[in-house]
């Protein structure tokens, strides 16, 4: 029996944490993710879960303490946003290369500046090469469902990597919407107990975590870590299948929405995909063959799979909620363009910058984007640079 209720995205993630009941949660508050540790702390105070909460003095310490707990053999998680993630930076790499299955609830918010608290993907995208698995959510429901699957992926023997589950700050983290929660018992069974094979507090086994490695060994370590990230693709799909058997919810590396016969496709990440679905339906009603490819998993990057799914399109718009300042477009744009080239996809393609610092995107805005794609395919429109959607002159 599922529980139909209404919750914000932050409440939904806190509820997932309650059902997982991790061993340790160190956290430091930062907008807009503050509510997550706040709700978890209340659950602990109320005796609903027996997680050890560690209030720390900074995000660097939060990630360090999470790492320490995980290395010791505990199931450990934390939550943060924006500059909080930036302050964790050094430790993010250490956590991943130490192969610690940490789970991080990331509520996406732009990095400063200008100083702003709203949704943007510059925090997680900045950490895209830190060695973490990254899974993004469109809604409160997906933030909850994705979070419930995170431990299974992170702790899998062929992966052993940290996972961040991302959702858009305020847009889903603070919006109250309908949600279906799953019963404790099947979820606890699905998530399972954490029984690591090797850990620091294991009796009769001495080990070191994060020691210095000379050049003779370092490169092999890095290759092994890269292989683990590759392995994660199949594990994410397998875990999603099991999750579907428990809940009926379908998840993949990405979602194809009316994409099968689409001539014009948009590729995007996060909450904007809900808005795009409404735009796709409205344009389909008018006879325009449009579709959406929603990226759920950004790390590992399913480039080949996405390129194949887009191969039949005439024009593709790749939306980035993160300016890379590379003079070469955003991260999704750059990586997907390369994947399209490798798959010999000949469609017109444009990278589009949108929603920076929480700039709103409407169904009408997406109609404009699909209009661009139609004109590009007809040879009537060409962008010399990647356009900014809704930019004021």
């Amino acid at each position, binding site marked *: 029996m599922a529980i139909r209720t209404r919750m914000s995205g932050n409440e939904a993630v806190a509820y997932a944490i309650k059902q997982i009941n991790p061993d340790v949660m160190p956290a430091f508050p930062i907008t*807009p993710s503050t509510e997550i540790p706040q709700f978890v702390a209340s659950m602990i105070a109320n005796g609903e879960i027996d997680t050890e909460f560690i209030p720390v003095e900074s995000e660097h310490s939060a990630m360090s303490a999470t790492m320490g707990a995980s290395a010791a053999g505990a199931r450990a998680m934390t939550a943060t946003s924006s500059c909080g993630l930036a302050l964790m930076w050094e430790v993010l790499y250490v956590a991943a290369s130490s192969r610690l299955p940490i789970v991080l609830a990331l509520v996406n918010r732009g990095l400063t500046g200008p100083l702003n608290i709203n949704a943007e993907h510059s925090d997680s995208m900045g950490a895209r090469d830190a060695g973490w698995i990254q899974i993004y959510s469109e809604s409160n429901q997906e933030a909850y469902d994705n979070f419930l699957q995170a431990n299974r992926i992170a702790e899998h023997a062929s992966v052993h990597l940290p996972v961040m589950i991302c959702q858009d700050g*305020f847009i889903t983290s*603070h*919006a*109250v*919407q*309908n949600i279906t929660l799953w019963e404790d018992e099947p979820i606890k069974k699905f998530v399972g107990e954490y029984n690591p094979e090797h850990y620091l507090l294991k009796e009769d086994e001495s080990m070191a975590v994060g020691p210095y490695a000379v050049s003779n060994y370092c490169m092999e370590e890095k290759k092994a870590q890269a292989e683990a990230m590759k392995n994660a693709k199949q594990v994410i799909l397998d875990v999603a299948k099991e999750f579907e058997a428990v809940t009926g919810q379908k998840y993949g590396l990405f979602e194809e929405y009316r994409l099968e016969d689409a001539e014009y496709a948009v590729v995007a990440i996060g*909450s*904007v995909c809900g*808005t795009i679905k409404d735009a796709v339906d409205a344009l389909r009603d008018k006879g325009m063959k449009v579709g959406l490819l929603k990226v759920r998993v950004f790390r590992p990057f399913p480039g080949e799979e996405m390129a194949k799914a887009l191969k039949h399109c005439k024009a593709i718009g790749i939306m980035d909620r993160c300016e890379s300042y590379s003079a070469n477009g955003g991260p999704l744009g750059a990586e997907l363009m390369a994947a399209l080239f490798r798959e010999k996809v000949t469609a017109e393609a444009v990278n589009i910058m949108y929603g920076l610092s929480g700039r709103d995107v409407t169904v009408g805005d997406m109609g404009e984007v699909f209009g661009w794609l139609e004109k590009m395919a007809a040879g009537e429109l060409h962008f010399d640079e990647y356009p900014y959607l809704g930019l004021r002159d």
Partner: protein
Amino acid sequence: MRHLTEIRWHGRGGQGAKTAALLLADVAFQAGKQVQGFPEYGPERMGAPITAYDRISDKEIRVHSNIYEPDFVAVVDDTLLHTVDVTAGLKADGGILINTQKSAEEILPLLKGYTGKIYLLDAHKVSMATLGKYFPNTPMLAGVVKISEVMEIHEFLREMEESLKHKFARKPEVLEGNLKALRMAIDEVQCIQ
């Protein structure tokens, strides 16, 4: 009743417009609706203009943008009428509810010729009479339910009683005051156009 009703709230930080928007989403959910209630966040501080939104629908709500063409607008503080374009995009077949102690003659010129329904509610009077303190959001919530017809009034009052009972389990006098405020507000809403 509309399949999708979109409501925009204008208030000032600290007046409870955000809380009212979330309460409306909550009570509409209890009545079996698909809901989305969310505030627009900026540099929050007491007294600064804030906006909050509600979508109430029979179908799944996927869109995640703000609301630019609302069916209804609620203005929790009438001083905003001078500085915020509260009727921007407001549908002519919808309506606006303004919390004010001013007369229709004073309010009408501030609404830029809006042709839809205009309602006034003295939430101050209602709040002082029933709660003894000024909490404009409770009367305004009832007013919005009345003008938007997103649910039946008796259904609204029943669901509110349930949730307030739970919230104020140890303060029955507050529960009673809030219920009185809701009922009185429903009677006090005055249509001036």
